């Protein structure tokens, strides 16, 4: 029983972090039909940024380091948009391929710069909590809380602010939104910034829980792809549900059979979804 609870709690925490990263992927896809392969590298770069700002000689407080890292990630995201995706006219296939190029370049540049020594962001809230026999690190609770807060903030932003509404308008019908005087280019920039900030927070949380290295962006990115495909690309609700589901299955298979099997199980679930419902749980029609 305790083991089951332990699996569920740690699964929910990982699931929430994956959710944050996958939300960035699904947001960009929903709005401009771009699958951003650089997203994983944003996760990795911001984790390094938080580490070097918050832990090194500078020793900034965590919140400040996090803000700077988010700003840097947003800048990189917007640069990618201008240098990579806009010249490709947001064509989905070309953007995918050029994104892979950028991702490889950034990742191997990070190997050259940061080296392979594993480092970790120290926990903001150290210690372990005992919840009725289930032990959970405070940092995990903190990470989970932050993810939930950001997801709610994203929801409120999309539904109750003007830029958020503009974003949803562009998502529903780009041309109609254009006729209403909404600049889609402006909306795209906002979307890239939000997506990058989500990646940055996800990266900092992953870095504080599992350590930082130049490859750390690859797995969350693959997981987000699986998540958004199960949940339905562009669907926020689908992403949340699928992320928690994947987090739980990963935690269960990881604890019972070892971590390497978890990915195979994820893929099996993905294949099953494709057989039963190719568009994902809440997705659009997939006639791209």
């Amino acid at each position, binding site marked *: 029983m305790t083991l089951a609870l332990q699996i569920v709690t740690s699964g929910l925490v990982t699931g929430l972090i994956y959710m944050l990263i996958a939300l960035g992927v699904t947001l960009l896809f929903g709005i401009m039909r771009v699958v951003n392969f650089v997203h994983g590298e944003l996760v990795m770069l911001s984790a390094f940024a938080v580490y070097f700002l918050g832990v090194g000689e500078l020793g900034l407080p965590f919140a400040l380091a996090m803000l700077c890292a988010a700003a840097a990630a947003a800048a990189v995201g917007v640069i990618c948009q201008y240098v990579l995706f806009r010249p490709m006219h947001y064509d989905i296939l070309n953007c995918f391929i050029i994104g892979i190029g950028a991702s*490889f370049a950034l990742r191997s540049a990070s190997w050259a710069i940061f080296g392979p020594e594993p480092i970790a962001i120290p926990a903001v809230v150290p210690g372990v909590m005992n919840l009725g026999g289930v032990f959970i690190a405070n940092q995990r609770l903190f990470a989970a809380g932050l993810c939930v807060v950001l997801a709610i903030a994203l929801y409120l932003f999309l539904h109750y602010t003007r830029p958020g509404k503009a974003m949803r308008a562009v998502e529903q019908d780009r041309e109609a939104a254009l006729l209403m005087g909404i600049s889609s280019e402006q909306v795209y920039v906002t979307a890239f910034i939000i997506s990058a900030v989500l990646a940055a927070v996800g990266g900092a949380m992953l870095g504080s829980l599992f350590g930082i290295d130049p490859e750390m962006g690859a797995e969350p990115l693959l997981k987000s792809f699986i998540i958004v495909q199960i949940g339905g690309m562009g669907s926020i609700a689908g992403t949340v549900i699928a992320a928690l589901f994947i987090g739980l299955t990963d935690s269960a298979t990881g604890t019972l059979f070892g971590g390497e099997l978890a990915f195979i199980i994820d893929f099996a679930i993905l*294949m099953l979804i494709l057989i039963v419902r190719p568009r994902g749980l809440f997705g659009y029609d997939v006639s*791209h």
Partner: protein
Amino acid sequence: MNAGWTSPTVALVAALLAGLVALPLLVTDAYILHVMILIGINVMVAVSMWLLGVTGLISFGQAGFMFIGAMTTALLTKSLGWPFWLALPLSALVPALIAAPVGRLSLRVRGVYFFLVTLAFGQVVNGVFAYFQEPFGGWYGIRDIPAPQPASLFTTLNKVPFYYLCLALTLITVGVVYRVSRSWFGNVLWSIRESELLAASVGIDVPGTKLIAFVVAALFAGVAGSFYAAYFAYISPLVFTFEYSVNMLIFIVVGGFASIAGPIVGAVVLTLVPEMFRMTGKYQLLAFGLILILSMRLMPQGIAGAYAAFRARRVRSSLPARAQSPGMDRET
């Protein structure tokens, strides 16, 4: 598309073939032969990937199918003691058999969804082989895979038999894929690229056609994998990675999608250049990433496309002046 069998093209191809066959007589340096073999393997995989790429689909699971082929050869020849020549056709067949159901499922989704599913498939093949120590060797891979028979000919020090075997397999792969791409079936593939809806409306079985291309691509990837296993005598999950599939894609993008010359040119150039500069590992990825970005931005039709445009411009400029269109429509 390129002009067909013009006589300069025939002469060029014939000269190239003669040169390739005669190469071991002229060059005795084992390193050069080794590089040529590497190029041959890459050409096989890139060309097989290109066949499906004709329809606008890119299978990021190509390294996975190659791994399955390599693993089949390794297990059959090492654990069961089969001769290589029996293992080779089976190593082509097994990936093709696996590709049939996988393709049936993954082709249910289109475009970028297909990329993602095949990407995940490649990762899973890698993951399965890495997870099970028995019989796949886990992360350590499989060592000491027997060389093809007769063993007295295929020795580690003598690259020439391997070179000719590789040349033969590469030529078969390129020849078959070329014939297929120029056949009625190939025309159907091109028509799917132009407009899937239109193709379906004139009675073409679009999913079936794509599936055949997917299976054929897996088959030749298996051949390449089988040769890889026999040549290097060592395979591991660290070789047949997602990065390997992406390298093949980069070969095609840099070479150009429009004709089979694209993947060949791309594979030759991008295998030679890193070898010349002795780039390894992570730095090669950096360079390849930048090359991919630059060629997408500056040369969307690849080297072969740029060459075709250059030739067309020369012909055109010798004609009376006429309004010229840049003709750089983007293709992928």
